[in-house]
């Protein structure tokens, strides 16, 4: 199992009051994303566990792009991957942050 950890300072704190949300399922080609509003300010942490090795750079690119575009400040994001493609990962991250922005 490969574990990756990314730390970012986002452009701002993510809007909304929701404390936690989960989206997706650990299944083939899918993943689950758990979002928790537990970090101070605009800090953001992403923890990934994946059985697929060799895609560290791809994960980094997807997470960088997500943080840049959606500014998930304050969130700790934990991912259990089932071998999802980068587009699916990005979709789940977007769905997750949209859930957190709901009041």
């Amino acid at each position, binding site marked *: 199992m490969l574990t990756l950890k990314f730390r970012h300072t986002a452009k701002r704190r993510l809007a909304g009051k929701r404390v936690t949300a989960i989206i997706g399922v650990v299944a083939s080609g899918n993943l689950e994303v*758990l979002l928790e509003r537990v970090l101070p300010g605009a800090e953001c942490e992403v923890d990934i566990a994946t059985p697929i090795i060799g895609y560290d750079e791809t994960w980094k690119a997807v997470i960088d792009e997500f943080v840049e575009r959606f500014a998930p400040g304050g969130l700790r994001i934990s991912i*259990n991957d089932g071998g999802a493609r980068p587009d699916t990962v990005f979709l789940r991250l977007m769905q997750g942050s949209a859930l957190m922005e709901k009041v």
Partner: protein
Amino acid sequence: MMADAAFYGQASWFQATARQRVAGLLDPNSFTEFLGPSERIRSPHLHLFDLPSAFDDGVVVGRGRLDGKDVLVAAQEGQFMGGTFGEVSGAKIVGLVRAARDHKNLPQTVLLLLDSGGVRLQEANAGELVVAELMRAIVQARSAGVAVIALVGGKSGAFGGAGLTAATCSRVVVSEQGRIAVSGPEVIETNKGVEEFDSSNKALVWSTDGGKNRRLIGGADAFAEDSMEGFRAAAITVLAKVPTFDLKTMQAEQERLSARQERFGACDDAVSMWRILGVKDPEAIRDMDSREFAALASATKEANHDAR
């Protein structure tokens, strides 16, 4: 903690995740989860096999309301490891049923949204034990006056321990896509030969294990359309009349099963059973829509009984 609002009403139960089903089944915003994903109560075994774990180990448990009535709910995620019973995923369901059994201040109705291929092979001993514990807990809870309702309509069906679990419930709701059995088709074919059960014959498999047959021969007590609203309506209907669990019910169940064995024991497919049931055009059942089929089943004697 719930997912998108798109999964209500007419959305498919078969396609939905466990969380979407819980949201679509219960009254809006009434659900409170126990041991949610943030608590990270996960399988301690899967990492040994280099397999990814899930934050809820594939089971969502909690309480909510169904048509204003307080209920406890457990939902298996059929897409994660086939919805299997592992040490943790199983213990969450057992704990919920035992809680209902022991605490009269908790809701005295348990809804089990089964979607499982049975025991998780990577944690087989714990899984087998937990299925036995669950069946025992259900029987004890029913004896204590708790209604335990199985809802079956997910991608993994209710096989192995989940099939056994369904059989111990007060009432069973099934959709056309919901398959209920103990040994799966491939297992039967491997052990008894292709002459016994041809697992590649999908029409045979679905007509035997599928929801329509289970409903017609009394293995399920209500037939739901494959939607959130369909399962919700069927669950509300069966909850209105749950049999008391006593010696009389057990004897009625024993008689029902013996009579069924005698009546259908020689049949080699579902259509011949439907013919014996007196269905006028048994071949037409496969293509019948849910509403028409539900009406037919309600008018069929074998499908309706006071046992279980």
